[in-house]
């Protein structure tokens, strides 16, 4: 009926990657020598599903590869094979190969056949190494050859005596006879002799038997195939009704020729069958590839989240119809009801919004899950003993944020393993336990998710960092920096204290990239460290990139949105605290700090009647660890705004991170506070040149 099965490929890839993750996790937890049978079972099931699916969807290379792996696992499951460390390692590489194969297939890239073959051969070798030699036994065609007869018209007599319990397997003799009828012409005789007296008759049992005469172009294999499901539930004889002529031929030495001919038939049958079975799948792949290239991405959502949404929408509809009714016959004495209705509407809308956001939220375990493997591999490579502790893995965050935070996290973990935790000998010398501990922790704090990577290693070496920073010209001789500022230097571009560039962690392009990536997500990364005790890297990220809690501010006739998270305080400007410095820049003295003042109306060329600082408000904001004061005319309300990309709808504008649409339909621009702050810090020369131009 021509069903295009490639439409299910996306689901298959998704679940296969999940399956591979499960396999990896279980493999890493496996205790060689004393493996938990449930773990082996779980691993087996995942491999089995991938094999089944890949076969069905025509990904034969994957199916073939997984088959060997599955056989190996099956032997372990049955206790025929020991789970050795070597086997676990090999299976881990197999997981990697499968992951690569599936990724390549999904992106219609080329398969790395050399690597696949290498691991495949290793698996085969391990399989053959088993003393039972199970793999060699598989010769599935033997049976088929026996059963296949020459084509052409032939007559058969089949005696079919079902056992009493046949019905209890859901089988039905009538169905079988009907199936034979579809194959050729039949004459069926029913044998009632075993039918008991009526009062003894058990209607749930089968008491009949049949003798069926077949005549047509049918082979013994075809007949036996029809009875395949019941061969253990009946007595079955299939006999060829031979004409005398055929007898002679059978006894003659021509029988060898018959066998040869029958083998030919099989080959021919195989050839005709295989393309027919696989062709649709193969043909459809390009279409699927195109779809995948678009990378629409999908998300798996728990039913409960969807149910909650449907529930919310129901509530919303009720409120809406209530308001409708109110509006139809509105009188002033119903204002109270109207207001109540509107409050309800707002509440439902907010809840709906929260629920919709929850759909995009995934537990951070999706990201944390890759670390046991990473730590396992790296610690053996580095000859260190490291224990990984993970907590808070159920903390949820936006899928997009999660995808983007993966690489920075890996980098930080690698860094802690490589530079943080000391070698076992060194640790013993320091009086520490031989095994180092790396902890990953995640939790929610306000509208943020906080991820901490803590190691109990040597801590950062302030002296070394400072020396390096001086060498690289990042700081100047004589700069008196407190320790936390020194530690912060490791996030500067081009900084690396590793004496030798190792292939484990970076070559000096690391930490600054981490910081930039985190910053791109609207987050921040910082480090605290104590020599000899360890370091903690803390990443703070907004839960989502789609919605923002904002403070609306007015400048002239324009409304801007300031992310609430970056606002520290707002104050009436006291002119005594305003200092003008060379270059036209202004500073505001707030307690013991001097903050650069950013005049938005100048920056964005907005007409405003109020140019005097004394008439306005100063909003103190922080971005990138630096503070600045933004001069605005008025503070409006606070509200959640939906972020629309400026870049995709217009173009990138410095100082702005996006736009949003307000309740009255007007567009408000969202300020990019870190951008503005750094702009104000570099403005000294810029404003000087502007002033020169004006003059």
């Amino acid at each position, binding site marked *: 009926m021509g069903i295009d099965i490639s439409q299910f490929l996306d689901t298959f890839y998704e679940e296969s990657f999940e399956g591979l993750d499960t396999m990896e996790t279980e493999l890493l937890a496996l205790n060689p020598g004393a493996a938990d049978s449930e773990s082996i079972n779980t691993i087996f099931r995942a491999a089995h599903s991938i094999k089944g699916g890949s076969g069905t969807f025509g990904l034969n290379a994957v199916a073939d590869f997984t088959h060997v792996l599955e056989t190996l696992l099956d032997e372990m499951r049955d206790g025929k094979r020991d789970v050795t460390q070597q086997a676990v390692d090999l299976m881990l590489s197999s997981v990697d190969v499968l992951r690569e194969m599936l990724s390549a297939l999904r992106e219609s890239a080329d398969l790395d056949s050399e690597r696949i073959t290498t691991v495949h051969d290793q698996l085969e070798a391990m399989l053959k190494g088993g003393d039972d030699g199970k793999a060699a036994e598989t010769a599935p065609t033997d049976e088929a050859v026996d059963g296949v007869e020459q084509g052409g018209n032939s007559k058969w007599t089949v005696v079919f005596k079902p056992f009493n319990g046949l019905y209890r*397997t*859901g089988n039905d003799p009538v169905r079988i006879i009907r199936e034979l009828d579809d194959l050729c012409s039949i004459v069926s005789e029913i044998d009632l002799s075993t039918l008991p007296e009526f009062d003894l008759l058990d209607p749930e049992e089968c008491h009949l038997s049949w003798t069926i005469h077949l005549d047509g172009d049918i082979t013994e294999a075809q007949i036996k195939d029809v009875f395949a499901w019941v061969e253990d539930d009946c007595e079955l004889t299939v006999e060829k009704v031979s004409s005398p002529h055929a007898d002679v031929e059978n006894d003659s030495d021509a029988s060898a020729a018959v066998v040869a001919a029958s083998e030919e038939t099989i080959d021919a049958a195989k050839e005709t069958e295989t393309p027919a079975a696989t062709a649709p799948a193969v043909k459809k792949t390009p279409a699927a590839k195109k779809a995948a290239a678009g990378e629409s991405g999908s998300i798996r959502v728990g039913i409960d989240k969807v149910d909650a949404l449907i529930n919310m929408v129901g509530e919303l509809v009720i409120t809406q119809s209530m308001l409708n009714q109110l509006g139809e016959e509105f009188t002033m004495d119903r204002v109270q009801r109207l207001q109540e209705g509107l409050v309800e509407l707002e509440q439902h809308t907010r809840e709906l919004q929260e629920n919709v956001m929850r759909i995009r939220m995934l537990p951070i375990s999706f990201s944390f899950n890759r670390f046991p493997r990473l730590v396992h591999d790296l610690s053996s490579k580095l000859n260190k003993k490291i224990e990984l502790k993970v907590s808070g893995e159920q903390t949820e965050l936006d899928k997009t944020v999660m995808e983007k935070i993966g690489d920075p996290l890996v980098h930080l973990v690698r860094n802690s393993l490589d530079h943080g935790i000391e070698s076992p000998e060194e640790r013993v010398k320091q009086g520490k336990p031989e095994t180092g501990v790396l902890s990953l922790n995640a939790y929610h704090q306000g509208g943020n998710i906080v991820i901490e990577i803590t190691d109990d290693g040597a801590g950062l070496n302030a002296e070394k960092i400072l020396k390096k920073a001086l060498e690289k010209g990042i700081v100047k001789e004589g700069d008196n920096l407190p320790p936390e500022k020194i530690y912060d230097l490791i996030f500067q571009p081009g900084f690396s204290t590793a004496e030798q560039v190792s292939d484990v962690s970076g070559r000096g392009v690391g930490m600054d990239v981490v910081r930039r990536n985190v910053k791109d997500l609207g987050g921040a990364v910082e480090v605290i460290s104590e020599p000899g005790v360890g370091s903690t890297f803390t990443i703070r990220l907004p839960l989502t990139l789609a919605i923002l809690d904002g403070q609306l501010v007015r400048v002239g006739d324009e409304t801007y949105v300031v992310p609430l998270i970056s606002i520290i305080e707002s104050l009436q400007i006291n002119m005594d605290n305003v200092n003008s410095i060379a270059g036209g820049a202004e500073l505001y003295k707030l307690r013991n700090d001097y903050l650069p003042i950013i005049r938005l109306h100048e920056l964005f060329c907005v007409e405003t009647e109020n140019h005097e600082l004394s008439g306005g408000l100063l909003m103190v904001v922080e971005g990138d660890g630096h503070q600045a004061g933004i001069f605005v005319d008025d503070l409006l309300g606070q509200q959640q705004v939906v972020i629309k990309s400026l870049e995709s709808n217009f173009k990138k504008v410095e100082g702005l991170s996006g736009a949003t649409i307000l309740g009255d339909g007007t567009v408000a621009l969202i300020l990019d506070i870190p951008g503005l702050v750094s702009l104000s810090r570099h403005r000294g020369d810029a404003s000087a040149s502007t002033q020169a131009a004006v003059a």
Partner: protein
Amino acid sequence: MPTILAVDDSASMRQMVSFTLKAAGFGVIEAVDGVDALSKAKTGKVDLVLTDVNMPKMDGISLIKELRTLPNYKFTPILLLTTESGADKKSEGKSAGATGWIVKPFNPDQLLATIKKVIR
């Protein structure tokens, strides 16, 4: 309209089977493992059960044994989805009360052809 209970822990297989069966006009109930299938089977009568063997919580073989103890499912056809390497699963399934099996990998046409043998 015959209803088929399709049991598989693999979402893509479930999608494929369910899509094929629905396109052929069958009603389909999906279940993700034996436990799920058993509870769904109990809430209504289905005309055919199609189950995978290897599943978490309750595998296909145990599911068949459980189903056969229910009065409603004494004679209901139950087909096992197995791989060709699982020959022992076939006989294990048979003795648990399976009607027959469909060998993976199969394409939609093969699936329908087999199912139409059992229910018309």
